[in-house]
């Protein structure tokens, strides 16, 4: 294979940077990582052929600095940039800057990113293409000092109807989003959402959308190339969310009938064709209890949960992204894409589910990861890493594949039992509680699942807590095995893990 690409810069960090770097290596492409000063020795930074440090830890001073990333590409002679997800992945300005600098941007055209990135414009485009959208209305833009016209907000909200969601026009991932139950809260929520949106996305424009009760989140993976081919790779259901962020995803969706699946796939392809979509993208829908579905948004990038699609289709989405970016045709025809079995992904986050999912920080003292048939772990960390508040708390993604949904659930639960991360709180036990819940096993999922079933969840099954206490006593030297002469000796010598944290792994780099 002779591609016009030789060297790819990955403009991201964490597990997704690792994922993309691996695909590049498999394709024989040279790799460049960028890293903040805090990530100098991070897993992704060590995997690449070359690493360029692009600034201090805060993303605004490193991973979000377009100039610094372009400069790194120039200095290393990279000819393509893969943005991953998050950070600059959906920045039309970044895609355009790459193109202007003579770099191949692994993603859609800047104009497509812009059109889909402004959620209000995307809604209009989809409605025009005949794709159903959630009822809603745009708000007048905030004044220069960020103030909203209260009377106009109230009037617009009354037209949309309560309960409603305030959403950032340029947002995503739950940031700049507020649920409003009645008129009393709408002004405060709109102002807070606008403030959060301005900070996170650089634009405080917000709009209102009818809040659908107990919908499912079902999305369709689409892929287009520069020759005008568009295919769909089936759906993913991502209804299990906390703070409007997905934590468990699966394919196929337990909710879709063959007819509904076909209709949704056709709508997704129509949406992609309407905007001349090139490269990997996702069309997100809300599916209500009556089987009606509505366009939510289109994500113009690789999705966090792409592994579940890779599992069921057996295809490599990142490899295809690089091929299409290089001007090749899509490597698969629609009739070659045949989903098989069932896949589930669980997002492992550094957070405390019992305390409102607040982020946890600290040093990873010990890390043990699951493996085995049908088990995949996309991880961005190694033991010794410091988890800070600067970045998204996603540590790793566990995904599994099985012949059917029950087998996939059992496989995911078993793998979660084998995931041990000490020193930083994680949601691993919480994920087990989700997968083990009767409602989840029945496939009775909706976006309010967590609030309905797990709002008063507490960690620490009594038997495990007792076992942990006894183990700690053994660890402290209280109990030891019998030695051969019948005398007892200490089982666990003082742990060498405690003193070595920073030095132990940093020293290798």
């Amino acid at each position, binding site marked *: 294979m002779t591609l016009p690409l030789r060297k790819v810069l990955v403009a991201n960090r964490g597990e997704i940077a690792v994922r993309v770097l691996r695909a590049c290596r498999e394709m024989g492409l040279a790799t460049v990582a960028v890293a903040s000063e805090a990530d100098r020795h991070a897993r992704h930074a060590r995997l690449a052929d070359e690493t360029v440090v692009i600034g201090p830890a805060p993303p605004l001073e490193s991973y979000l600095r377009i100039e610094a990333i372009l400069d790194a590409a120039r200095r290393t002679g990279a000819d393509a940039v893969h943005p991953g997800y998050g950070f600059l992945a959906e920045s039309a300005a970044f895609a355009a800057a790459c193109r202007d600098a003579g770099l191949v941007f692994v993603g859609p055209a800047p104009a497509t990113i812009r059109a889909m990135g402004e959620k209000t414009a995307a809604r209009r485009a989809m409605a025009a293409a005949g794709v159903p959208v959630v009822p809603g209305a745009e708000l007048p833009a905030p004044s220069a000092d960020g103030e909203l016209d209260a009377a106009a907000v109230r009037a617009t909200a009354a037209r949309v109807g309560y309960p409603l969601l305030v959403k950032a026009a340029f947002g995503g991932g739950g940031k700049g989003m507020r649920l409003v139950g009645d008129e009393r809260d709408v002004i405060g929520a709109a102002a807070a959402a606008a403030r959060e949106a301005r900070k*996170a996305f650089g634009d405080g424009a917000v709009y209102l959308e009818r809040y659908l009760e107990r919908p499912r989140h079902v999305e369709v993976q689409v892929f287009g190339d520069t020759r005008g081919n568009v295919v769909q790779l089936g759906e993913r259901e991502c209804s299990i969310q906390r703070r409007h962020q997905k934590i468990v995803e699966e394919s196929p969706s337990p909710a879709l009938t063959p007819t509904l699946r076909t209709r949704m796939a056709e709508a997704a392809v129509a949406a992609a064709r309407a905007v001349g979509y090139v490269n990997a993208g996702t069309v997100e829908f809300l599916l209500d209890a009556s089987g009606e579905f509505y366009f939510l948004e289109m994500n113009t990038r690789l999705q966090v949960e792409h592994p579940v699609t890779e599992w069921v289709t057996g295809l490599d989405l990142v490899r295809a992204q690089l091929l299409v970016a290089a001007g090749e045709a899509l490597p698969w025809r629609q009739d070659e894409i045949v989903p098989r079995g069932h896949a589930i992904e669980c997002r492992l986050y550094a957070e405390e589910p019992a305390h409102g999912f607040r982020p946890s*920080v600290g040093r990873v003292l010990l890390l043990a990861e699951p493996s085995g048939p049908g088990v995949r772990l996309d991880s961005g960390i190694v033991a010794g890493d410091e988890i800070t508040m600067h970045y998204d708390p996603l540590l790793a993604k566990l995904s599994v594949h099985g012949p059917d949904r029950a087998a996939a659930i059992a496989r995911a639960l078993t793998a979660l039992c084998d995931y041990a991360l*000490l020193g930083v*709180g994680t949601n691993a036990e919480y994920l087990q509680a989700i997968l083990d819940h009767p409602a989840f096993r029945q496939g009775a999922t909706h976006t309010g699942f967590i609030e309905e079933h797990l709002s008063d969840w507490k960690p*620490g099954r009594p038997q495990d807590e*007792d076992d942990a206490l006894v183990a*700690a006593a053994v660890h402290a030297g*209280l109990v030891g095995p019998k030695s051969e002469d019948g005398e007892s000796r200490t089982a666990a010598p003082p742990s060498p893990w405690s003193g070595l944290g920073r030095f132990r792994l940093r020293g290798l780099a």
Partner: protein
Amino acid sequence: MLLQFNTGNRLASLEVVQRDGCVLLDGRPVAVEVLDAAPGRLELRLDGRRRRVWLADTGALTHVCVDGRTFSLVRHTGDEESEDVAAGGPRVTAPLPGKIVKVHVQLGHAVEAGTPLLILEAMKMETEIVAPLAGVVQAVHAIAGATVAMGDPLVDIAPADAPPGV
């Protein structure tokens, strides 16, 4: 030898009965067999159940992972003092590291339980910190724009039923 650990749920005591095989956990005997021990890892048989356990220490904390469930046990020495008592009233501290976006209250403000005190931003999400009880603001440590660490004092509140300034 007696050990006490605070699990967050309870204060548990462990006492050795036979050094090679039995401990009393809160008075209940547990048969312990150490099958293998390596740095950070123990293979145990507890009352006949085989368990693989991961462990790591940081200061007074022992982190333990059993079947994907993690516990942070605090070795208890019995002389901890409540910060609330030391401060003369309930102290609201930062539940997570972040940046103070806005402070709603001033010295002397009367607050109800649930009154918003300030907005803290962490991981790009805004969290509203509210008063845990009714009372009068006795001290404001939080400054808008400042960065705080977990546990840093934010606001002190004198409970409504206690005279302020004590």
